[in-house]
């Protein structure tokens, strides 16, 4: 491979996306020449890129697709769903190849066969290819060419250019051909012939006749010496890299801040010199205070700037949906169109990356359950093609994303039946519920079950997983619905996501989180090494005596394990070290911490909670309070 691989990967992906967009729009509006040109250009540019990284098979596949689009452009073919499918399929394959190239740095070994397959399918669709016209040498496909043969080809080409019947710009053509021909001669060390030719050129220009020049070129064509071909140079492959594209403005802001930080740093050096020279302490204090203020502002700005690097437009995830909705709609036999609004809305990278699955699930649900069949829609007087809107907007510190369909709305009576049947809620609880609360039951665990697994909505997960995922991101999900008008599912997500790293530990059979920042180290000690000191216990670690607290006991859950060695977490609380005895040590993980709510709010020793991947709540401990209470 070669040094252009990295850029090939980045631009290739963008072109695949652009091609996808244009093809989908083209399917909607087959007469849109601009979209057609856009799609064509995406394939075309991808083909060029494939050539640069020597990916011949990819070029071949793209060429086949391009031929088909070209036929549409020249009105020799029509935009059909099959044609769009084939072109989208080709882009899928190209996307997969790009992924593989990024991972391995090599052209995928299966690409030849995969490309052949695509080419076969394209040519089956387009019918037999047109034969090349006889009598024309055709364009030069570069191979390892001998220099002299290049010269010969160039001269032949100039002759043909001179023979062109040109209505306009004849002088320009003639003169350019003369220049090239003279240069070829010059290159071959025949400067005198070149000068002669240029003289001839001037008289030809005046006479407006190219015949004499053609003849002169003919004469010199005989005399060009043969040279052996030069061997092609090999190039080395750079390793693939995972990259994040960042707005230039944001990088500029960082650079500017860096400059200001440098100035602030120098000012502190200056203050240090003043202190050394025993300057007036008050003046020094003022200088330092000002510098501190400046640094404070700059560091704050730097923090915001760095956070903004993590912010991406939702377009990154939204762009995948038109394609998926199209496929879902096709497989369900429910014509539907996806309208996207606010795709430029930005959100934290964590959210943009995590939002795909829940959105896909909601969209699937909308198509599968929300939309009526075309017949039903016709009876209701609704347009045959349903509309699903995917919208995003920024609202203060939140990002709102909603999915709205124009289907039948949620059937609350049915929700009530299902909830009862599946023991999601009791009869009396259901009777007391408002409509909104009833609708909300679709997110309850156990509401959707495997029994209603269809080709799309199923896969064994229900809307409860959507809610769990969104809540893990620190967001909320709400649903509203109007009978026969449609359903809207709304996600409210935080704009910035502050992740905390915690270490999970187990005590009294339950998993807790300890903020990683407080953890110094973990040790295993013999139980006898933890000695009672009055009412408390202590151990010695490297000549330091540390208080040790049994977590299970501190939480009022009785003593922890008593056999074998003890697992002790050495933690630092406000500079003081302490030992926390736990039954088992788990994994470090990044979590979104929420302050304790509801009943937990009054419980001491709890810093916050977070949801685990399996839906369980992880309690993150406030070590301050635990150690303080244990002391007393």
């Amino acid at each position, binding site marked *: 491979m070669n040094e252009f691989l990295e850029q090939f990967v980045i631009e290739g992906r963008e072109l695949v996306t652009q091609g996808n967009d244009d093809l989908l729009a083209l399917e909607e509006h087959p007469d849109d020449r601009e979209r057609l040109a856009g799609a064509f*250009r995406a394939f075309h*540019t991808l083909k060029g890129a494939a050539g640069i990284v020597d990916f011949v098979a990819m070029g071949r596949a793209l060429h086949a697709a391009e031929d088909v689009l070209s036929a549409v452009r020249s009105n020799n073919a029509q935009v059909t769903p099959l044609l769009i499918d084939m072109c989208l399929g080709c882009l899928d394959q190209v996307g997969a190849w790009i992924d593989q190239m990024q991972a391995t740095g090599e052209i995928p070994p299966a690409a030849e066969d995969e490309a052949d397959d695509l080419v076969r399918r394209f040519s089956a669709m387009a019918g037999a290819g047109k034969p090349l016209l006889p009598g024309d040498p055709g364009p030069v496909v570069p191979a*390892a060419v001998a220099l002299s043969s290049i010269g010969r080809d160039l001269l032949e080409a100039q002759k043909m250019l001179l023979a062109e019947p040109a209505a306009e710009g004849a002088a*320009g*053509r003639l003169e350019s051909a003369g220049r090239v021909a003279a240069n*070829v*001669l010059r*290159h*071959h060390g025949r400067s005198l012939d070149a000068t002669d030719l240029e003289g001839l050129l001037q008289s030809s220009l005046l006479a407006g006749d190219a015949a004499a020049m053609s003849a002169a070129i003919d004469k010199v064509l005989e005399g060009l010496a043969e040279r052996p071909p030069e061997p092609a140079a090999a190039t080395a492959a750079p390793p693939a890299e995972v990259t994040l594209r960042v707005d230039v403005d944001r990088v500029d802001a960082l650079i500017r801040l860096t400059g200001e930080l440098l100035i602030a740093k120098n000012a502190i050096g200056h203050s240090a010199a003043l202190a050394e020279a025993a300057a007036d302490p008050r003046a020094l204090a003022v200088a330092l205070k000002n510098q501190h203020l400046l640094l404070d502002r700059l560091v704050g700005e730097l923090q915001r700037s760095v956070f903004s690097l993590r912010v991406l437009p939702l377009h990154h995830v939204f762009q995948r949906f038109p394609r998926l909705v199209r496929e879902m709609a096709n497989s369900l036999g429910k014509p539907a169109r996806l309208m996207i609004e606010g795709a430029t809305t930005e959100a934290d990278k964590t959210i943009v990356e995590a939002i795909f699955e829940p959105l896909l699930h909601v969209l699937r649900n909308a198509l599968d359950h929300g939309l009526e069949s075309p017949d039903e829609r016709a009876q209701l007087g609704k347009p045959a093609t349903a509309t699903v809107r995917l919208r995003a907007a920024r609202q203060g510190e939140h990002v709102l994303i909603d999915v709205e369909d124009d289907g039948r709305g949620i059937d609350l009576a049915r929700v009530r039946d299902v909830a009862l049947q599946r023991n999601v809620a009791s009869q009396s609880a259901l009777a007391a519920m408002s409509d909104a609360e009833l609708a909300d039951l679709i997110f309850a665990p156990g509401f959707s079950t495997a029994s209603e697994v269809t080709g799309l909505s199923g896969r064994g997960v229900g809307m409860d997983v959507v809610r769990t995922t969104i809540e893990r991101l620190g967001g909320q999900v709400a649903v509203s619905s109007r009978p026969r008008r449609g359903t809207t599912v709304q996600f409210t997500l935080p704009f910035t996501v502050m992740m905390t790293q915690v270490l999970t530990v187990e005590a009294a059979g339950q998993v807790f989180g300890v903020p990683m920042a407080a953890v110094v180290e973990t040790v295993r000690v013999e139980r006898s090494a933890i000695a009672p000191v009055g009412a408390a216990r202590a151990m010695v670690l490297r000549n330091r005596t540390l208080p040790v607290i049994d977590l299970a006991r501190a939480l009022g859950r009785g003593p922890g394990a008593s056999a074998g060695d003890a697992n002790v977490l050495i933690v630092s609380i406000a500079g003081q070290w302490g030992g926390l005895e736990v039954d088992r040590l788990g994994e470090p993980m990044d979590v979104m911490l929420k302050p304790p709510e509801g009943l937990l709010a009054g419980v001491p020793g709890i810093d916050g909670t977070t949801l685990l991947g399996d839906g369980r709540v992880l309690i993150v401990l406030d070590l301050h309070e635990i150690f303080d209470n244990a002391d007393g």
Partner: protein
Amino acid sequence: MADAAAKRILVVDDANLVRRFYRDALERANFEVGEALNGVEALEKLLVESFDLVIVDVNMPQMDGLTFLRALRLQAAPVSSIPALVISTEAAPQDARAARSAGANFYLVKPVPQDTLVAYVSIMCGLPA
């Protein structure tokens, strides 16, 4: 390559990767390289700077390569006589013919390896072998 430094090449292609690829090859061979994203930009550049050769793609937004060539040949001398090398992905004879009738001096089909590109450009600029 001997004294390519005196020679200036204008690369006209809408694909960043392609321009970078050509620029890289040509600069290593000591050519001076200018860039344009489409025919309109290329014409603007040619009218204010002097170039010894134009390398031009066919399929570009705003103004495609062939329209550009026709417009180029209609300019006043010496701009009208700048040699033009078309490099396109189209490999059919009629594509080469269309380029020639628009005023192209030569037509190459992508992909053009870097050493091949330098070889053609050197000869078209009349550099000693």
